[in-house]
């Protein structure tokens, strides 16, 4: 019995560490990638995955029903609010001309926006 608890505890600790490492990768990506849109990739996706892994690790260590539900709620809101924030950053960056259009291979949105005018 206590062996199982030990295994679960270790797995939880490992998940915490992996989640933190993935968050760190996202930060490194933010430094290395060239422009706003690419950076928003690095800022959102690894963060969400890392966050969920950290929450799973915490859940394995806490192991009580109510705490699990709270952790689930945190994950739910993280997945719901992260894309909204990143979309707003990307949209405002695009519309205020922070995008280097020569760097893009092609841009289907640009045609649409200029058509609309």
């Amino acid at each position, binding site marked *: 019995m206590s062996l199982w608890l030990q295994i679960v505890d270790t797995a939880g600790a490992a998940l915490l560490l992996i989640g933190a490492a993935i968050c760190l*990768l996202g930060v490194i990506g933010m430094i290395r990638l060239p422009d706003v849109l*690419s950076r928003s990739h690095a800022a959102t*996706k690894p963060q969400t995955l890392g966050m969920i892994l950290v929450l799973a690790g915490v859940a394995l260590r806490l192991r009580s029903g*109510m705490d699990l539900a709270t952790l689930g709620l945190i994950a739910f809101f993280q997945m719901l609010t992260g894309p909204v924030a990143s979309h707003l950053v990307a949209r405002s960056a695009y519309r205020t001309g922070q995008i280097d259009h020569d760097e893009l291979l092609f841009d*289907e949105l640009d045609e649409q926006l200029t058509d609309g005018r």
Partner: protein
Amino acid sequence: MKRILRLSFRNADLPPLSAEFGTRRRRVLDLPLIAWLTLIWVLLWSTLTWANVITGLVVSVAVCLAFPLPRVDLGLRLHPWGILHLAVYLLHDMYTSGVKVTRQIFFGLPHRAAVIGVPLRCRSDLMLAATAVAVSNVPGGSIIEVRRATATVFLHVLDADRPEELEAARRQVWRIEELTVRAFGTPDEIARVAGPPPPPQLAAGRPAP
């Protein structure tokens, strides 16, 4: 004399699952919304006691009265099997693409990015928003713009050099759309996403791959 509280299952003129409340200025309360807010309240206190449930009910009714939402039929249906399917797909995709993003960050810098438009099949606002959120959560594309009139999402894709990568990004969006609608959509929308993806008439100006 009018009654203070009227429930929707006795009054056909109220929207389903709601209660009308008040004497002079009558307000319509959305019962599932109140239940959800109460659940969040209890979870935030993280103990299930009667005191928490009752204060949660009071707070959520007060919030709903103070900040009323517009009365719209969202068209939200919950299909448990579809939700499970979507969750498994999203988690699996996050996991497998984590490696890919890492490789891009460390070794794949000279790749060119592109902005592509992907026309969707669903038309309701809620499905459009849910699909956009789901697409944003998996690596591959981040949403820049959503066109409501044509139901088109515009994605920034990192690895745009090869045409098959672009095709994969489009197919992924359509797959996520289908799963999202199967998890939350009305039968009408589900029938629509079961069809083939729309022709890329919006993408006419882009160079042929």
